[in-house]
């Protein structure tokens, strides 16, 4: 059955993948379908908030909408058109056996008028609602807690100011609400009221999207190897998953900012179950016992890519470079010894992350992580790191500045891990590093993001970044 899926007009690239992930979580693929069917309303642009999606049942549609962050609502569409006359005709033509059960005298209802790219005054809204006399509503109106909500959604005429590129035509939709997102989560979890924060704490909305991509549910174990202040795991724990985190910085995981301001307190603040475990460990030299594999259902993380925070790994910088000889820490100094760490390049970090995920994820488990990309002009294709065990199912771009963006990659473990696979993965990694990853090495990303423009290029750039020349609408498909 086709449903009208209306999105909030933000994080455009994340919208469909979120619905697809949740569709899997709620069993939409159990009837053998391999992916969701999508359609755009007539003359609509991919960035439009209006999409049609084919789902096996209303329950699944409701579950997806209720858990999602970006779906404003899922609707059973009763009619659409370019004008009110067309809309009336469409609604009248919609089969009665689909309409009448929701119009009976025992039920309560309300009609909500919504718009995209324009504002409709209260009087206008009432006028439009009164215009629906041709629908035989028998029930009573209940504005607070109706059994059924009907939505009239209107988009503006062709124009430059409705938030979409000027290809979208005026369209009217009328439908019955099947489910809607619970955005109340976001003010509850917003970072500004979080007790313990670090400089790279994950924004609450994004953390929930990541937890959705990872299919976090009760009974599952979710791991974050760069846990920091726990901002991603908080979202996974909200959805009932067991959580586990590690970080190389012991001050962050153990001490925080005092007894009531640390990673544990972040979970306590929201009444969430505490992480199953937090530990200090190095992702480069993970302390898992030999033979331990396929324990995590998902690994979610925001690896350090050296723009706002750099990664560290065990072993002294000079030691690893061979500038100084290996040395032994004297026995009497061992107890309080603080081991030195060395910079951890993103390339290495991604390699270790794949290795960890390939070994420790269950089959079908998900690896969800951010990957930075320099936004070069004219490059259409982005190369993502690959691993023989993993299939990329979603890549969502979030533009951070004119120069760089981060992509949320969701990968599913499709093949089992073995020594041969690990060797093959190392080869792929070296190849990838050679061809696509040069700029990720040793601080290049940092300088690409932060250095002044004129130090990188000659004067020709100026016009490119000139404010007036920037198109008003900058989306992925424009």
């Amino acid at each position: 059955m086709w449903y009208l899926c209306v999105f909030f007009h933000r994080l455009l690239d994340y919208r469909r993948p979120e619905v697809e992930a949740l569709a899997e979580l709620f069993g939409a693929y159990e009837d053998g379908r391999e992916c969701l069917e999508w359609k755009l309303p007539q003359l609509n642009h991919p960035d439009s908030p209006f999409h049609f999606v084919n789902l096996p049942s209303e329950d699944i549609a409701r579950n997806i909408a209720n858990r999602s962050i970006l779906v404003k609502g899922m609707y059973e569409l009763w009619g659409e058109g370019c004008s009110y006359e067309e809309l009336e005709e469409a609604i009248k033509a919609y089969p009665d056996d689909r309409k009448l059960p929701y119009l009976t005298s025992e039920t309560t209802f309300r009609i909500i008028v919504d718009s995209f790219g324009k504002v409709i005054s209260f009087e206008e809204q009432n006028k439009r609602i009164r215009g629906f006399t041709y629908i035989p509503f028998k029930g009573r109106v209940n504005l607070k807690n109706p059994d059924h909500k009907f939505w009239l959604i209107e988009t503006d005429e062709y124009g430059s100011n409705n938030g979409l590129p000027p290809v979208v035509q005026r369209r009217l939709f009328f439908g019955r609400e099947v489910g809607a997102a619970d955005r109340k989560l976001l003010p509850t979890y917003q970072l500004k009221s979080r007790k313990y924060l670090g400089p790279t704490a994950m924004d609450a909305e994004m953390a929930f999207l990541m937890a959705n991509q990872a299919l976090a549910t009760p009974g599952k174990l979710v791991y974050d190897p760069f846990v920091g202040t726990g901002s991603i795991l908080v979202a996974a724990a909200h959805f009932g998953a067991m959580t586990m985190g590690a970080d190389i910085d012991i001050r962050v995981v153990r001490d925080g900012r005092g007894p009531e301001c640390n990673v544990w307190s972040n979970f306590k603040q929201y009444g969430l179950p505490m992480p199953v475990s937090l530990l200090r460990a190095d992702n480069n030299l993970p302390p898992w016992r030999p033979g331990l594999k396929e324990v995590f259902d998902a690994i979610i993380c925001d690896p350090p890519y050296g723009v706002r925070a750099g990664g560290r790994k065990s072993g002294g910088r000079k030691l690893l470079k061979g500038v100084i000889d290996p040395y032994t820490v004297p026995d009497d100094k061992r107890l309080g010894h603080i081991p030195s760490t060395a910079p951890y390049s993103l390339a290495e970090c991604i390699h270790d992350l794949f290795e960890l995920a390939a070994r420790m994820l269950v089959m079908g488990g998900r690896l969800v992580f951010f990957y930075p990309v320099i936004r070069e002009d004219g490059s259409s294709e982005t190369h993502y790191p690959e691993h023989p065990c993993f299939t990329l199912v979603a890549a969502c771009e979030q533009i951070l500045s004119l120069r760089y963006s981060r992509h949320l990659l969701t990968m599913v473990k499709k093949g089992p891990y073995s020594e041969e696979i690990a060797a093959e993965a190392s080869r792929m990694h070296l190849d990838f590093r050679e061809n696509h990853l040069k700029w990720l090495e040793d601080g290049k990303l940092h300088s690409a993001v932060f250095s002044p423009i004129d130090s990188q290029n000659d004067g020709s750039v100026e016009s490119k970044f000139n404010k007036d020349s920037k198109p008003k609408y900058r989306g992925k498909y424009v």
Partner: protein
Amino acid sequence: MRLLTHNMLSSNIKGVANGFPLGLEVQKFVEKQVDFNPDFLKNMFPKIEWKALVTAAKTMGYAELPEEVESSMLESEDFLQKFHHALLELHLEEGALICPETGRRFAVTKGIPNMLLHEDEV
């Protein structure tokens, strides 16, 4: 640190062949109640090194776990409760994990094991 974590960790010092199971040095331990989730327990059961769990639980003063197990025991509510208690509710708050081969102490403070290696162990 819960015994689930203990069951997953080993000493990864360079050259150590048998870093598992880590010994437990208990200075302070606490019991914290955790919501019972049978699905999670059933998922974890095949991945647990049972002997190491039994020994660790005994060190923490909990001797109710059977020495030998098989998956049919997961049907028993009583067994699941004991498994749940040992795996998730016993916390090592202060103490250390001891490498069985070298005797190296990995300190556990405020419930967080410090598994980072020194420069000469990498």
